[in-house]
Structures are given as C-alpha cells and as structure tokens.
C-alpha cells in the first residue's frame, strides 16, 4: 500500500511538471478523381491510405522538419539548452500526428483525416498545423504529378527494350525455320512419303541397272563372237588370196574396230569411243550404236542410284532429328509469344499512362482538400493534469491488483477449511489461525496506524500539488 502511494506521488509530481500544451488540427479529405478510374487506371498505384503514409513520410523528412522549426522558431528553450538537431527533429516529429477519421479506410476510395500539431504556444500550434496541411496538399499534387510523369518515362524505356527483344526473337525464329525447315514436325509426313517414293525409284533404278549390265555382257559376247567369225573368214580367204588382198585387209580392219568397241564396253566408261577413220561396216556400226546406248544407260543409272541413296539418307536424318527441332522450336515460340504479349501490354500501359499523366497535370486526379482550417487552440491539450494524476494513481492500483491476480493464477496452495474438506474425505479438518502474542498485536496496530498516516499524507500532498498548479 505504501509503495502504491509512493508511486502515485511520483506520478503526480511528474504530471504537475508538464508544461501546458496546445494542439491545433486541420481536417483534410481525399477527393475522388474526376475521371472515372474505370477509364483511366490511376497513374499512381497508391490508394488514399497509402498516399497518407507516403506523404506523411515525406512531410516528416528531416529536412522538412528542420525547415519548419526554423520558420516558426520552435523549441526555443531546447535550442538554448543546446539540444541536438536530431533531438529537435525527433521532438517535432512526435508532436505531429496524422490520423484518418473514416472507418471506411479499408475501402480506400474516400478519406477524411486530420493533421495536428501540439506545441507550447497556441499561435505557433495553429501556424504549424496550417503549414503542415498546406504542405500536405501541395506535396500530394507534386508527388502524383511526378509519379505519373516518371511512370510514362519508365514505360517508354521499357517499351523500347521490349521492342528490341521482340525483333531479335523474330529473326531467330526465321533463321531456325530456314535452317531446319525439313526437320520440323509439320514436314514429317512429307518426309516419310518422299522417302518411300525414293525407295521405289531406287529399287527401279537398281533393277534397270542390273538389266543393263546383263545387256552389256550380251553385247560383249556378241562382239567376241563376231571377231572370231571374222578371223575364221580371214583364214578361209588366205587359203585363196594373199594377205595383201583388200578383202583380207577389210576383215582385219573390221576385227580391229570390233576389238576397240570390245575394250570400250569392257572399260565401261562413258567416254566416247575413239572415232574411226573409215566408215563403219554394217556389222560394226550395229555394235557401235548398241555399245553407246548401253554405256549411256549404265552411266545414267549409276548416277541415279547415287543420287537416290543420298536423298534417302538425308530424309532419314531429317526424320530422326524432328523431335529435337520440335522442342527447340517450342522454346523459341514461347519466348517469342511472351515477348509479344509484353510488348502489347506495354503499349497499352503507355497509352494509359499518357492519358493519366495528362489528367494529373490538369489536377483532375485524386487529391486532398482542406475541409477545416486549424483553429487557434484555447485550452491546453491532452488529458487535464488533475485527471492525469488520478489516472496515474488508479493505474498503480490496477497494476497491484493485476499482480495479485497473476500470483493467484499460479498459486495452487490451500486457503480455506472448505477447500480441504472438498479435496480430501478426512474426518478431521481444522483451520488454525496465525498465533499472535500480545506483542504481535501491538506491532500490527502500529502498522495500521503507519499505513493510514502514509495514506493521509499522500492525499494531502496530491491536493496541495493540484491546488498549486491550478493557482499557477
């Protein structure tokens, strides 16, 4: 008890030391943008509540606060005492309060709030409060304008880089398609069909080739037979004629021509046979044309075979590469689509932002309006000091009770006879009071007197202090 009284005395003393304070406050509202937000998304993404916070932070910046202190010559006493700038700024900050009034703050579309300043001097309080309100309105407009402009600028930059990105992706896609056109999935069917066609062609070519080779063998044999016949005829002629006889010479010449044709066809080259100086005999010319046709066919067919085999393997590798290309293409396409979308978004936003910044520049966006000028405060602000003293005293009593309550909660000790009876079924339950000798009793009475005396003294002191501060 004595402690509680000492605590409240200390409290009351502190309270009586507090200088009177005056509070002035301005009321502002945030108005709706004139142009519907459905048409123009506000350039600044902040709602009114966030705008307060942002603005309050700007308002309460150190530089601003120092300006205000100097402009209104605040905290003279503290400055004389040599308080640091930081301390002064902190003091001013703690004396400024921005509070929203509307319970509909959550909706964030309409707001009323107050800016108040508490100071030692009523006039200064009023002046500072209206300065703050003015700053608030002005700052907000500036902030939003700046925000809208910088948004537009930012978007323009973004747009440029998005465009470059999109172009690059487009080129990449084009290159890919030209380079791997045959390997793309949509080509797969054609590839397979072509391959089967080529296979048929190749088979035909191969069988034609085999046939022609057979023909060549037949011609060879026929030429050989003709040569043998000519030698036989020559032997017959020599029996009757000399070797210088023109008939004999003719047989030799014909055989030699045939031998050349024979060598030619054996070599199998497409090179033209050495031209003969004399006109061909009918037998030779027949063979010559046969050899030429066969060799030409052979040459064509062999080339066809090579071409078809190469084509075949090209289609095969295209078909086996398709899954890989498919994936590569998908990745490229995705990037491309994203980039395209981004670009489209940015274009849209830039247009909106241009519109919005026009709106802000014409001050048609959301803004704050002064509803109530700060009035000159008449009475000191805050809880009346007498009441504050009571509150301090009451607070200490409540604290004491709370302490007792907490102690009680943790306490499982026994207190009454009844509790014991309820807890255990023993026949004998007797409560025994504290034993007191006459001396104890005397001491106890002394204690009461001391407590009452303390209480009385406290009351007297509280009253005296109160009366004194009133008189002052």
């Amino acid at each position, binding site marked *: 008890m004595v402690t509680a009284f000492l605590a409240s005395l200390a409290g009351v003393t502190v309270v009586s030391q507090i200088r009177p304070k005056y509070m002035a406050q301005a009321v502002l509202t945030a108005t709706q943008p004139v142009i519907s937000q459905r048409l123009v998304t506000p350039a600044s993404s902040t709602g009114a509540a966030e705008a307060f916070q942002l603005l309050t932070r700007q308002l309460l910046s150190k530089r601003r606060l120092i300006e205000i202190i100097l402009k209104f010559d605040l905290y003279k006493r503290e400055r004389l005492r040599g308080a640091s700038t930081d301390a002064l700024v902190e003091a001013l900050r703690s004396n400024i309060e921005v509070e929203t009034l509307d319970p509909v703050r959550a909706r964030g579309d309409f707001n009323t709030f107050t800016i108040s300043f508490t100071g030692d001097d009523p006039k200064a309080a009023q002046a500072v409060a209206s300065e703050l309100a003015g700053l608030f309105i002005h700052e907000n407009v500036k902030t939003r304008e700046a925000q809208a402009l910088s948004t537009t600028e930012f978007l323009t930059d973004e747009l440029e880089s998005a465009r470059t990105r999109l172009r690059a992706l487009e080129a990449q896609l084009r290159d890919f398609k030209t380079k791997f056109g045959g390997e793309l999935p949509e080509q797969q069917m054609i590839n397979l069909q072509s391959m089967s066609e080529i296979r048929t062609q190749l088979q035909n070519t191969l069988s034609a080739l085999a046939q022609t080779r057979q023909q060549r063998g037949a011609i060879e044999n026929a030429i050989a037979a003709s040569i043998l016949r000519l030698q036989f005829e020559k032997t017959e002629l020599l029996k009757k004629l000399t070797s210088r006889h023109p008939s004999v010479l003719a047989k030799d010449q014909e055989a030699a021509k045939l031998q050349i044709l024979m060598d030619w066809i054996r070599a199998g080259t497409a090179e033209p046979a050495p031209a003969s100086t004399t006109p061909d005999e009918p037998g030779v010319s027949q063979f010559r044309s046969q050899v030429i046709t066969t060799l030409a066919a052979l040459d064509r067919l062999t080339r066809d075979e090579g071409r078809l085999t190469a084509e075949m393997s090209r289609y095969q590798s295209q078909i086996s590469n398709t899954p890989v290309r498919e994936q590569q293409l998908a990745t490229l396409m995705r990037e491309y689509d994203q980039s395209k979308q981004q670009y489209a978004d940015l274009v849209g936003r830039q247009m909106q932002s241009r519109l919005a910044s026009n709106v802000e520049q014409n001050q048609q966006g959301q803004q704050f309006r002064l509803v109530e000028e700060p009035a000159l405060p008449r009475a000191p602000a805050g809880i009346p000091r007498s009441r504050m003293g009571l509150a301090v005293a009451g607070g200490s009593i409540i604290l004491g009770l709370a302490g007792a309550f907490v102690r009680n909660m943790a*306490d*499982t*000790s*026994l*207190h*009454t*006879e009844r509790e*014991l009876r309820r*807890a*255990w*079924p*023993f*026949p*004998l*339950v*007797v*409560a*025994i*009071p*504290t*034993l*007191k*000798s*006459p001396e104890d009793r005397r001491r106890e009475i002394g204690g009461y007197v001391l407590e009452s005396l303390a209480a009385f003294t406290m009351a007297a002191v509280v009253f005296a202090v109160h009366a004194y501060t009133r008189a002052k």
Partner: protein
Amino acid sequence: MRGADELVTNGPDSLVGIGVTTESPASGQGDSALDLSTLRTVEFGPRSKVKVATLIDPRGAASDRFRLLRMKLRHLSEKTGLRRLLITSALPQDGKTTIALNLATTLAEQGARKVLLIEADLHHPTLSDRLDLEPKPGLAEYLESTPSISGLLKRLTPAQIYLLSSGFAKTNPTELLQSARLTELLAAVNSKFDWIVIDSPPALPLTDALSLARHVDGVLLVARADVTPREAVDEAIQRLGPANILGVLLNGASNVDRLYSRYSRYYNR
C-alpha cells in the same frame, strides 16, 4: 466420508499400529522404573519464542480452534482407542512443531491429562532452542544407547506436558528412527500417558515420517494456508497411505479470526 472407526481400524494395507497396537495401555510391559512424579520440571526459558495459544491468549480464536481439535480427537479416541498421534506435513516450515506443542498443551488441560510430546525431528530439532531450554540428551541418545528413559523425560511448565526432546543424533537420524528401540520406547511410555504426540520431519523430502507412522494410531497432516501447494499435500497423503490419515490441519488460516471475532465479543465478555 468414511467413518472414523474405519479409518483407525487396521485395513490390510494400513501401517497404523503395526507392532504396537497389541500392547494395551494397562499391560505394564514398559519401563516399570518410569515414575512420572519423579521427573524434573523445567520451565520455558525467559527468551522463549514459542507461541502456545492456550497460554498467551486462552480466549482467542486460536485457542478455540485447538479446543475444537481436542474435542474431535477425544471423540475419535472414545470410539477407537486413539492415543498416539503423529504430526507431520508435506514440506518444511508448515508449522508441525508449533502445532504439536499447541496440541499437546491443549490435550493436557492444565495437567488434568498426561501428555507426552516426542520431538522426533532428529534432522532439524528446534523445540529446545525455541523454548529456551538447556540442550539435553533426548530421543536420539535413547535410540543410540541409553537404556533408561526416566533420565531423558522432563515435565514442562507452564504447558503441563511431558517432553522427550530430540537430543543430538550421532548417526544417521533416518536409520535411527527405523531401529527396534523405537518400538521399545513406545512400549515403555504407552501405559503411562493419556496422549502421545510425536512431532516429525516433513514427509516429502524424508522417509522419517513414514517410519514414525508405523508406531502411531493416526497421522495429522499440517498444511500451511496460502503456502503449501495442494499437490504436495496430495503426494504426502499418498506416501503415508490415505487410510492412516486422521485429518488435515490448515495452519495459519486467515479467515478464522474474522469469523470467530463476531462471536467472541458475544461469548467472552
């Protein structure tokens, strides 16, 4: 609530009275040399700090509560032959010694009854000091060696009770209390007294109270109001066996005074 008879009658798991109940007070098997009239009388010393309710304030609330307790005990005694009481508690400083002395004094009715108070707290004897008596041998010495009890007992005024103080244990007190000499002691004094009150160490930290409980008819458990946690009392009851417990005394209860003062003015004019 169980009947008092049931409580004191030995159940199968009851510790009460084991070993001693067979000896009737009149059997005279004890120390036949013990003659109470020859005992020394000692007085509370001048610096005695002990508070005995019936002496300092015979009309106060506390004295009244002790008389109530005496009445209840007598009632039980008539029905069950209850004569030996053990005063213990869950924890130290619950007020065992204070209550034992007060109860013994109240039971003595200014010498009309013969009451023996045995201080069996050999760990932490406080009584002699608090009564400002000269330190003398007692229970510990008896249990350790001294054959005769007569030299150790003394009559105490103004309480009008007989006292066997704890003395000074040279060996482990807990082991001492488990010796057969304790049975002998109880047998020796049993027939000479109307009541035997034994003050003991706390039951939770030590097993002494458990050993002592085997030599008595009933246990009174002391709980300090606003201090002893209920869980501690519960634990002590479990240790001693609920069947051995006569009751619980709430020591230092605060609202007894107030309740009583309403009537005291009326009755005690």
